[in-house]
């Protein structure tokens, strides 16, 4: 185990991917000369050259579409959409081409495309730069949706994604880049099937993913001091969802809170909640609760942004309510 930052983990994954397969290349806005908005590809232009590290013009729909085309043409593109916010401009290419062409063509074409993007709020960058739309992506059949929360997953999921024959979308929570974690060097590539129990517990299941994992773990810490044993489930893969692991946890704890930085209505948390009901209703001692973002464009000032997002305190409070109720 080595300690590295999430950014370093992403960098390590990218470098290994580029080194390991000549068909792999990286393209996106400012991945080259600038070194990547989050410095994930700093130095790569020099290391791998401009053929493989491609700065694109501001044209999300087209460079994502070009990624689709390049994948159809035998390459293994890693497309970086700077942030999920700008990916809205590329959704047509994603929904109607990337996710669809394989099935629609009767299985004649594969699109081994990896798209990475930063997601989430928490850095005071205001309404247009703070979206969490992983739940939308998880709605689209034909793609795989990953939310690495740990440094091991940040590196390993990228490598695993490149082994998939179909499009994979990786959401890196922007808040995590500077944070450090323990890298499990053996986990390479990581499994893309199972959710992970990040902390075992017996009283309640906290189910979450991405940036919110760390908030859930912090809440679990707080709750432990009060004698409440919370199990923390990291979904890791939002599509296809490993609901069995969730059900197993809930069958043990009989209670659950789902934490998701998306706005509450239509959040991915709703899906998890609905599936818990569908598969573990008779194991539940109380209704599954959700801690999501307040339904408001995320405001700039810290006190309001904090209030808008899930926080450990809010999670802990919700747990107490569920246990008390």
């Amino acid at each position, binding site marked *: 185990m080595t300690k590295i930052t999430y950014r370093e983990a992403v960098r390590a994954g990218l470098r290994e991917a580029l080194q390991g397969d000549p068909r792999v290349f990286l393209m996106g806005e400012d991945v080259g000369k600038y070194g990547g908005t989050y410095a994930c590809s700093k130095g790569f232009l020099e290391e791998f050259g401009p053929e493989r590290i491609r700065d694109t013009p501001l044209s999300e729909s087209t460079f994502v579409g070009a990624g689709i085309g390049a994948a159809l*043409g035998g390459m293994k593109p890693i497309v970086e959409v700077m942030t999920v916010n700008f990916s809205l401009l590329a959704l047509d290419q994603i929904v109607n*081409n990337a996710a669809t062409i394989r099935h629609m063509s*009767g299985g004649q074409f594969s699109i081994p495309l990896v798209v990475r993007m930063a997601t989430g709020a928490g850095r005071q960058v205001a309404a247009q730069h703070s979206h969490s739309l992983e739940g939308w992506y998880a709605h689209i059949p034909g793609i795989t949706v990953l939310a690495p929360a740990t440094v091991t997953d940040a590196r390993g999921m990228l490598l695993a994604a490149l082994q998939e024959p179909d499009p994979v979308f990786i959401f890196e929570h922007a808040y995590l880049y500077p944070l450090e974690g323990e890298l499990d060097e053996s986990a390479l590539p990581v499994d893309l099937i199972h959710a992970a129990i990040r902390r075992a517990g017996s009283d309640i299941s906290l189910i979450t993913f991405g940036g919110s994992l760390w908030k859930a773990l912090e809440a679990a810490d707080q709750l432990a001091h009060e004698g409440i044993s919370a199990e923390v489930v990291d979904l890791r893969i939002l599509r296809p969802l490993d609901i069995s692991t969730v059900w197993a946890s809930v069958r043990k704890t009989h209670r659950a809170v789902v934490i998701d930085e998306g706005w509450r209505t239509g959040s991915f948390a709703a899906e998890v909640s609905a599936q818990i009901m569908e598969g573990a209703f008779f194991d539940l001692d109380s209704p599954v609760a959700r801690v999501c973002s307040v339904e408001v464009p995320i405001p700039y000032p810290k006190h309001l942004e904090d209030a808008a997002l899930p926080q450990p305190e809010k999670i802990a409070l919700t747990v107490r309510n569920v246990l008390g109720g």
Partner: protein
Amino acid sequence: MDAVVDRDHALDLLRQMLRIRRFEEKCAELYSGGKIRGFLHLYIGEEAVAVGAMPCFTSEDAIVGTYREHGHALIRGTPMGPLMAELYGKANGCARGRGGSMHFFDATRRFYGGLAIVGGGLPVAVGLALADNMQQRRRVTACFFGDGAVAEGEFHESLNLAALWKLPVLFLCENNLYAMGTALGRHQSQTDIARKADAYAVPAEAVNGMDVLEVEAATRKAVDFVRTGHGPYLLEYRTYRFRAHSMYDAELYRTKDEVAQWKQRDPIALFHQQLRTEGYVTDADLDNMETAIAAEIAEAVSFAEMSPWEPMEDLTKDVYTAKNGFHRSAQS
């Protein structure tokens, strides 16, 4: 008649245009009979474009089309049977029947759709060319789209990216003067489409899309330019659609007169006339052609009729690639 065109080739061009015309006339009939459903966009009137362009590509080149792509697929070489079966929605269709009229695909002929979101094929074509470029293949990607697509942002983004990276894409605009019911001058402030290429430092040319030989000559020149590493090229084919936009269209937006005038320029009739005058084709030749085509169509229809439906249990097959026997599950 230009002496550079030999008789066999000329006859083939005529035959190919007729194949599209007759095939689509049959489609219209089958649509009325309920055999073909959904949207059906006919290419009738524009045949000279696909027929003139297609011989300029090698089998290694890639083709990206729109929802009005019957002609392109047919001339590219996909047999009529699988195309007709696709229109029927049958399992022997060129996309297992899943896509129908708007979504022809044929991997062996590098035919990448059949994409029905206007403008959506351009970025994909740029990417296909990028893949060729990065793999040092001297292939060309031909991307067909309509005048309506020119207004979409992806036209702009794609020409810029292709030019910036000097990618071997041939942008082929089939300007039939209408985007559905909206006339060119009502959707483009600059109606000279070829002229737009200057905004990307891309060379361009507009040609008479009703003249199969002119289409072929211009396309061949453009393909050469692109194949030799000079980057993209934009060709504007000026053409006209004789039929309604789709089977639902009441054609309120143009006069019968306008259509009639354009029919005077029917690419098939004119070319046939030309060949007759030159003595390249006799009435018997034409009869033979028509007979052969009718037989081909009849065979295609019976192929489609006899084709099975895709079994229900395959509904979710190919949403994901089956891997090591493990199929990512689809839920209902």
